[in-house]
C-alpha cells in the first residue's frame, strides 16, 4: 500500500488517539485509589480539591497533555498550505510551551505566562495566509 503525506498524518492522528485512549483507561490501574477520588463539598455548593496528585499521576497527566497538543497540531495541519503550515507549526509550538507551563507551573507568574500562551497566542492564527486546501473526494 503506497502512503502519501496526508495518509501518514492521518495515521499519526489515529495512533495518538489510540495511545490517549489506552492511557486514559489504564489510569485506573496506574493510580486506582486516586481514579475514584471525588471532590467533596465543604460548604453549600462549594467543592474542595481532591488531594494533590501522586508522582505517577502527574507523569501520566504530562503525557496526556503532550499527546492532546500533538493531536491539535495534527488537526491544524489537515488544512494544508505550505506557508501556513510553517506558521501553524510555530503557533503550535508556542501553544505547547504555554500549556505545559500552565499545567506544571510552581508559581503564579509562570502560570500567568502559560495562560497567555494558551489563550491569546492562537489568535496569531488570524494572520495566517489563506489556506489553499483542496477538498479531497473520498474513494
Amino acid at each position, binding site marked *: 500500500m503506497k502512503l502519501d503525506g*496526508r*495518509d501518514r498524518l*492521518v*495515521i499519526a*492522528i*489515529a495512533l495518538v*488517539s*489510540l495511545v*490517549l*485512549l489506552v492511557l*486514559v483507561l489504564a*489510569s*485506573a490501574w496506574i493510580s486506582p485509589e486516586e481514579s*475514584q*477520588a*471525588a*471532590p467533596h463539598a465543604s*460548604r*453549600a*455548593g*462549594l*467543592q*474542595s*480539591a*481532591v*488531594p*494533590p*496528585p501522586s508522582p505517577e*499521576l*502527574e507523569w*501520566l*497527566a504530562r503525557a*496526556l*497533555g503532550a499527546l*492532546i497538543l500533538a*493531536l491539535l497540531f495534527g*488537526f*491544524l495541519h*489537515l*488544512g494544508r498550505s505550505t506557508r501556513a503550515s510553517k506558521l501553524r507549526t510555530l503557533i503550535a509550538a508556542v*501553544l505547547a510551551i504555554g500549556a505545559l507551563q*500552565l*499545567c506544571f*507551573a510552581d508559581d503564579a507568574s509562570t*502560570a500567568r505566562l502559560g*495562560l497567555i500562551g*494558551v*489563550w*491569546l497566542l492562537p*489568535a496569531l*492564527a*488570524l494572520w*495566517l495566509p489563506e*489556506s489553499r*486546501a483542496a*477538498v*479531497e*473526494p*473520498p*474513494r
Partner: protein
Amino acid sequence: MSRTSVQLLCVAIYALVCTLVGVWSLRRTHDRRDYFMAGRRLGGWVTGLGVFASTLSGFSFIGGPSLIYRQGFSSMWIVITGPIAHAITFLVVARPLRRIAGEHDALSLPEAVAAHYGDRRTGLWTALVIIAGVLGYLGTQILAMANALQVMLPGTLTLFQSAWIVTAVLLLYCTIGGSVAAAYTDVIQGLLMIVAAIGVSVCASRAFEGGYPAMLETLEADDPGSAGAWGAFGLLGCLGWYLTFTLGSCGQPHAITRLMMTRSLKDLRVAFPLVVIAGMIGGLVWMSVGTTMRALVVSGSIEPLASADQAAPAFLATQAPPLLAGLVFAGLLAASMSTADGFLNIGAAALVHDLPRGLGRNPGLGHVGRARLATVGLCTAAFGIAIAWQDLLGLLGVAAWGLFAAGLVPVIAIGFHWRRATARAARWSLATSLVVNLGLRLSGLGLPHHFDPGALALLTSLVVFVVVSFLARPES
C-alpha cells in the same frame, strides 16, 4: 422604577426587536433554500456574530459561573479552548464545508456530508447524531431561559410555567422566519452579549474589595487546590474537557452550519477574527461571575447559595446595577434563544429533509410547512426533556456537546481532507460515537479520574474512522 421593572423593560425591548426582525425575515423567506440556508447570502460580519452567538449559550451564562463557583478553576480548561478551537474550525473545516455546500447546493450539514461521500446512508447517520444532540442541547437552553425568567419574576412563576413561556416565544420567531430570522437576530444578540460580558466583568471586579487579586488571595487561602490550575475536578478531568471542547468545536452543527450560509469564501476571512475576539470577550462572564461569587461566599460577605446554579442570577440580583442586570438577562435570553433557534433549524432540517433522503425517499418540494411542524415537534420533545431533567442543566449541555464532537469531527474534519476516507468508515464512526456516548451516559459508568465520556467517544470514533477507512474496500 423598580429593579424588576427595569429588567422586564430591557427584555421586552429585546423581544420586540427580535419579533420585528422575524417579521422582516418572513418577507425574505420564499423557499426552502431561504428557510434552511438564509438564501446563502450572509456576509462576514453576520456569519461571525452568528457563529459566536450560536456557540455562547445559556450554558456559558449560567452553567459556566456555576462550575467556577462549585469547582474552582477547573472549568477554565473549557474557557481557554475558544481561540484554538475556532482556529481549527475555520482553518480546517470552514472552507471545504462552504465549498461542498455551494457545489451541491446542500441545505443542511447531513446533505453536505452525504454529497461529499456520495452516500445517502452517511447522511442518514449524520442526521441521527444531530437529532440526538439537538434534543439534549435544546433542553439545556429551555432550562437556562426558564431559570432566568424565574429570577426576574421572583415568586410569580413555577419552573414549568417559565419553561412553557420560553418555549412558546422560541417557537414564535423560529417558525416565522427560519434561518433568515436566526441569522439577523444573531447580529443583535451577539452585540448585546459582548456589551453584557464587558459590563459584568467590570462590575464583578468592583464587587469585592481589592478586585480580582484580592479574590484570588482569598480563594487560595481557603483551598489552594481549587484555586490552582486544576480546580477541584482534578488533572485528568480537566484535560478531558480541554480535548472535548477544543477538537469538538469543529463538529458543533449549530455553529458550522452558519459557515455554509456565507455569500462567498472571502466572507470567512472576516468572520474568523470576529468570532475569536468576541469569544474571548464572552468568556469573561464565565470567569468573572463565578470567581466573584465563590470569593464572596468564602470571605463570609454573603451567605452560601442554595445551589451553584444560582451563582449568576444571584450575582445579578445583588451585585449588578438594575440596568446592567436587565441587559445581562436580555443577553442571557439572547444567547439561549439564538442557540436554541440554531438547533431547531438544523433539527427540523434533519427530520424533514435528511432522514427521508437517507431512507431513499424524495423529501419533495415546498416542505417549509413540514419544517415548521417538525420545529414544533422538536420544541415539544425538548420541553419534556427539560422538565424531566430539570436539575441537570450543565450535564445535558456537556453531553450534547460530546455527542456532536464524537460523531461529526472525524467525518468532517478528517474526511473532507483525506482521499482514502470511505463512506463505510464514516457510518461506522458515527455509529460508534452514538453507542459509546449514549452507553456511557445512560449506564452511569464513571470513567477513571472523571475523564469526560464525550472525549473518550471522540477518541474511539477517530480510531474507528481511520482503521475502517484503511481496511474497507471502496464501495461501488
